């Protein structure tokens, strides 16, 4: 699983990467996930259902991230423009 963060002037950066089945990796992913959310970002997991339809799900806790998710994308919170 990779935790990606959108960044102005750069595109996405990898903030953490690891195997959720490996305890040390999972702990690092959880800590990074919490830090990014605490910094005010939103987190979403892109998904594809059986019919091939693409969508996303917002996650507010690492336990909400599907175990087989390949990536979580962090991006700035929406604000009225």
């Amino acid at each position: 699983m990779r935790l990606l963060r959108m960044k102005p002037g750069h595109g996405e950066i990898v903030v953490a990467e690891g195997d959720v089945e490996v305890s040390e990796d999972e702990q690092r992913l959880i800590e990074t996930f919490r830090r990014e959310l605490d910094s005010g970002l939103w987190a979403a997991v892109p998904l594809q259902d059986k019919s091939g339809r693409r969508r996303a799900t917002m996650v507010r806790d690492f336990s909400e991230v599907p175990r087989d998710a390949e990536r979580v994308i962090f991006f700035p919170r929406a604000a009225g423009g």
Partner: protein
Amino acid sequence: MAASLAFAGLLFAVLAGQALAPGARRRAARLRGGRPAPAAPDFDPGRERRAEQRARELLRSCVGEREWAMYRDLGFISVAGGIGPRPAGYAYLIYPHRPIVAYVPGERRLLSEYCVRFPDGERPYGSDRLPDADDVLAKWLALTADERCLVGEANMHLPGRQIDPDAVRGDITRLERWEGAGLPADANVRAA
């Protein structure tokens, strides 16, 4: 002759003032004992291009080939509105760094504009603005994950507040042609 010289002198003074203004402001700040204002980072077109390229790859990998081709060929993405697998009878046009527009497909009727931004408070290169494709992806992620939440965060306006309604209807026409042909609607590829 005298008038010409006076005008040239005035022009020189104005141009010199503009050229020296940033340095003068920093010196003035130092004399006042304050810290000089940080110089704005230079805009680097190469960096921005690379960022956009990276963002496009991420967008492509998330939204799928059809929506990616739509963005590449037309410069925006259309997303069906409503929660669940059944179409709700309306859709959204997602533009980079412009409001999301809700409309009724087939009728070309515009419903509303949702003005929303994703400002990055860290401003890593002096700007809080995501690359275009990242802005589109952020809207797509939020809209497909939690439509109500995004709509709730946005400022809703009647069509025409920020985007010309005729231009949006033109985009819907281009989209319909694009979907009908399975090819770019015209040669005016805006996002390539």
